[in-house]
């Protein structure tokens, strides 16, 4: 039987956030081989912040992403390799290079209100013969109707699919359902969901999206990803099979990949600690977590206060530089309080 939806495993892209962008070619080879053999149709590989993300602001990659992509393309026998790019961070040349290396799916990501900066990149992906996917990040911040307007823009630029992306892991089941249902009812292109697990709802949101007819779902094996992690691919596959949704993926092989290839990279993955939960509760971009922990240590202020202040300021994905700004301001406030007392 054919699968009820298409699964994209983003362990080697979103998972990059969880390990400060330190993936090695050997890890990529093992993970791609395992996922490919289990039947995963699309595997995303890039810096966590997409092509060109290696930087002071987001963290420098251990291994150049062209090296990682090359290994992924060589290793995959059935799966297509996907890349992510954020206009403003990556440039068109990065996309051309990825296409040359053999990437076949280009996922173009913008903040949920800024779809119009993706026009030239979606068009380029199509020119390069790639599948183009629009990726609307932080979708929880706007109402479904507004999200639809932005999704329509991406569709009009030529996107083959548009995703509602819960970058902050802040979406409730009802929120995920309403967004997917509205997009499905009004778009002729495919619709996808990318869930994070900060409120422990990633699998539930993905299953709710399936009930609303979602065409594509993202997972990360063991949940390896930004914030408290993503929708764990092996759990999603098992839960789908038991709920009667065909995945086309071997659940036992998936469990094996999770245990042997991905779990060793970050054994503690899957624990939703207070800070991870807070991201979902405050609606803060998931990849801010490690940067905030580091800034908390460097400037001697609590991670929690940094995250809450970031939520207050309504910063968006890409503004990692504001973490330093917030931490220093909290440090100054604390110092003036001490002088005052």
């Amino acid at each position, binding site marked *: 039987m054919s699968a009820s939806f298409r699964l994209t495993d983003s362990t080697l892209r979103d998972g990059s956030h969880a390990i400060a962008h330190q993936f090695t070619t050997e890890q990529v080879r093992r993970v791609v081989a395992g996922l490919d053999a289990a039947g995963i149709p699309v595997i995303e590989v890039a810096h966590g912040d997409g092509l060109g993300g290696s930087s*002071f*602001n987001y963290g420098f990659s251990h291994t150049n992403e062209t090296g990682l992509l090359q290994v992924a393309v060589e290793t995959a026998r059935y799966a297509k390799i996907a890349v992510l790019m954020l206009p*403003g961070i990556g440039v*068109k040349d990065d996309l051309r290079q990825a296409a040359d290396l053999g990437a076949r799916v280009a996922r173009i990501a913008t903040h949920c209100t*800024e779809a119009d900066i993706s026009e*030239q990149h979606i068009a380029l992906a199509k020119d390069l013969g790639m599948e183009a996917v629009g990726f609307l990040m932080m979708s929880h911040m706007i109402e479904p109707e507004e999200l639809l307007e932005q999704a329509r823009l991406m569709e009009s630029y030529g996107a083959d699919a548009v995703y509602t992306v819960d970058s902050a892991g802040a979406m409730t089941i009802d929120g995920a359902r309403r967004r997917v249902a509205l997009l499905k009812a009004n778009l002729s292109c495919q619709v996808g969901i990318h869930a994070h697990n900060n409120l422990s709802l990633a699998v539930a949101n993905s299953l709710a999206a399936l009930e609303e007819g979602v065409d594509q779902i993202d997972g990360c094996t063991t949940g390896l990803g930004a914030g408290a992690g993503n929708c764990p691919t092996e759990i999603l596959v098992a839960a789908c099979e038991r709920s009667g949704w065909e995945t086309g993926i071997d659940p036992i092989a998936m469990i094996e990949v999770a245990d042997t290839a991905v779990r060793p990279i970050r054994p503690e993955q899957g624990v939703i600690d207070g800070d991870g939960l807070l991201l979902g509760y405050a609606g803060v971009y998931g990849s801010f977590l490690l940067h905030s922990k580091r800034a908390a240590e460097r400037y001697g202020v609590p991670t929690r206060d940094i995250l809450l202040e970031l939520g207050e300021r309504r910063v*968006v994905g890409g*503004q990692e*530089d504001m973490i330093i700004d917030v931490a*220093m301001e909290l440090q100054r406030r604390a110092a003036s309080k001490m002088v005052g007392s």
Partner: protein
Amino acid sequence: MTLRCAIVGSGNIGTDLLYKLLRSEKLEAALMVGIDPASEGLARAREAGVETVADGVDGLIERAAELDLVLEATSAWVYRINAPLYRRVGLRSIDLTPARLGPLVVPPVNLAEHLDAPDLNLITCGGQATVPIVAAVRSVTEVPYAEIVSTVASVSAGPGTRQNIDEFTHTTSASLVEVGGADFGKAIMVLNPAEPPILMRNTVFCALGDGYDRDEVADAITRMVAAVASYVPGYRLKAPPVFDEDLFRTPGGDVKARVVTLLEVEGAADYLPAYAGNLDIMTASAIRVAEAMVR
């Protein structure tokens, strides 16, 4: 003497330029050129007693003898058509589009070198805001790699910027190296839709070579911020420069330290709202360059 200036483009930037020209003692707003007779910019110019042309640059070319300088506030592709026309009639121009035909100019860094060029390009708002800091650090130590993050309010980024975000990142990255003096450069642009709109923010990361002197670097940055603030009053440091020591594996090689400069730019609100520091720094830089041409 004063320079007789023509503004080409009657949109937001052109209109902001108009008010800055009207305030300048060294510059005269002689003409504003638009393509839409009903545009608000042209109406405001007429109201201020400035002559206007509503059917493009032909009218300007006819009057070339009465003009000294063009301030171009159209778009890159329009400027590529207009620039040769200006040259033919001997008019100089300051280009606020990202067309990059003339040398890239940042007033406190390299204006003196290019003051005689017929065509000067002002890079991008992000370039005007961050290149001075890179150049300041470079004046006292090696900068193997410089990276900037420029965040602007969504409402202050027009359709031109949005459709050409790649050109913005390319041009700004190039200016960190060509004008700022870094060995490698990377520019990142972020749009933030928060309401009320945020002020323009810029963060400049400079990798530091061995043997830098903290005080020297911090002094150079502080002095440069004052130099920019002399013509962009809302340009300021959010905090003293931050020095971080760690191993950073940058494209310019491994370094052991970086300095991070957090900047904010509040606009003068001549025509555009105060949050649009990104637009103000462009028009203020253009006026600075034009005034320097008056000798």
